[in-house]
């Protein structure tokens, strides 16, 4: 079926519910972009025995949310969101180039581009209104940029977009930790739940962040990811 249209005038699908369903789709671990195949440095940290339980995994994720690359990336996602709302293709392209330049390592940059490429194909296949916007982004395109672009197009609120993006990221890495450390499934979900107050707090911070303050603390992540690039045996992609 090409470009399925959604009956937006249907009484059973009011616009808010439709936005919620779109957000669930976009932030779902089942979204076919391959997020599950990346560990963002966790695999090398587990191999080096620096992460070996739920507590150390959650404090790593907490630090990353508070100070790290995910916070910076999500702040740029928000800029892509606003650029889409303003129909400003030049700004979309500029933020996409900017995000590519901030990726800490080759591995993290390629992850962002690979997932971005997969989401691009998906969006264009879902809805023809994406085509002019995605063309404006330029190539290679980053996953976070397209996530922001899709959320804006589908009228999801900025706050919910950010919280869902952070949740989807955290959920994916919790699953990575469950496989690598390993941990029980329930322990993993408890860890994710523990991160909720931080996700909410960081969502508010990102909404307020000025362009001048776009920065991150990248030492731990860069070294873990660099080390993963040359790790001998890997479950996760590099």
């Amino acid at each position, binding site marked *: 079926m090409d470009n399925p249209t959604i009956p937006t005038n249907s009484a059973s699908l009011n616009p808010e519910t439709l936005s919620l369903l779109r957000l669930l789709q976009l932030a779902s671990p089942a979204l076919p972009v391959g997020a599950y195949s990346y560990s963002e440095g966790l695999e090398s940290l587990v191999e080096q025995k620096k992460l070996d339980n739920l507590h150390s995994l959650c404090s*790593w994720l907490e*630090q990353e949310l508070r100070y*790290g690359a995910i916070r910076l990336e999500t702040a740029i996602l928000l800029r892509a969101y606003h650029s889409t709302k303003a129909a400003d293709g030049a700004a979309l392209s500029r933020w996409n180039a900017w995000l590519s330049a*901030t990726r800490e390592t080759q591995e993290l*940059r390629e992850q962002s581009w690979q997932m971005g490429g997969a989401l691009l194909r998906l969006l264009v296949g879902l809805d023809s209104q994406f085509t002019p916007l995605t063309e404006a982004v330029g190539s290679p395109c980053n996953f976070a940029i397209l996530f922001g672009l899709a959320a804006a197009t589908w009228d999801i609120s900025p706050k919910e977009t950010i919280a869902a993006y952070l949740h989807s990221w955290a959920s994916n890495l919790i699953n990575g930790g469950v496989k690598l450390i390993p941990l029980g499934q329930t322990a993993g979900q408890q860890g994710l739940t523990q991160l909720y107050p931080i996700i909410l707090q960081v969502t508010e911070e990102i909404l307020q962040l000025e362009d001048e303050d776009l920065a991150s603390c*990248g030492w*731990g992540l860069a*070294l873990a990811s660099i*080390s993963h690039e040359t790790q001998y045996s890997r479950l996760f992609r590099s």
Partner: protein
Amino acid sequence: MTHWQGKLELTYAKQEGATQMIHALNHAPLKVQRPFYPEGEQICHTVGLHTAGGIVGGDILMQNLHLHPRSEVFFTTPAASKIYRSNGQQAQQQIEITLEENAILEWFPQESIIFNGADYCHKMRVNLAPNAVFLGWEITRFGRTARGEQFMSGEWRSHNEFWQQDTPVWIDRQWLPGHPETVQSLHGLANSPIVASFIALGLPNSTSLLENARQLWPTPPQRGEFGLTTTQNQGLLCRYRGHSLTEIKQRFVTLWHFLRQNSLSRPKLHPRVWM
């Protein structure tokens, strides 16, 4: 207390095979030594000085380097910079570097020591024209380690941005709020007082450069973590987090000498000002 608004503006041009400093302007506390040529006239060696003891809140230091086509410059400083505990105001350093076609800049200032409680913002932007080369490092020590001091309060920002023909190639905006959490956590400093980055942009063939550079050291460093990766446009990036200035300087100098010999066909250099 008076604040410094220091300025250093240097322009270089290649004239009959010699790199000349064709313009120099300085406002205290920034100064520049007379250029010298230990490797011959094609490479101008420049030593920038900060003539006050260190940098305090409210200070604004601006440096502007412009290298005309094919000019070649080696830049360093004679001593570590000290950034003192803040008096409530932020200290700022802004550096703008423009490298025109085929210019080569080796940018190797000595380390900065960020005192506990310092509020410091360093911003450097490098604009590279086609075939321009930038090799450089940034080495930072948090706290006066010999006194047991750690960076438990204050804020450090270091924004280093590299643009090639108006496209951002490498944007490295580091931020460290001084706090036990960031100082101690595995994600932040992991109790290591020293962080450092080395970047090389504009050299051809970085894939093989990366592979060869990874072979320079048979073992990992003993007192820190160290790794190499690539940026966009075949840049080479190296990161360190650890405890030893000697260790990281030795590694960075080894990497620098390797790049000098392999990519710039220049011999190893042991600057006298570092000895």
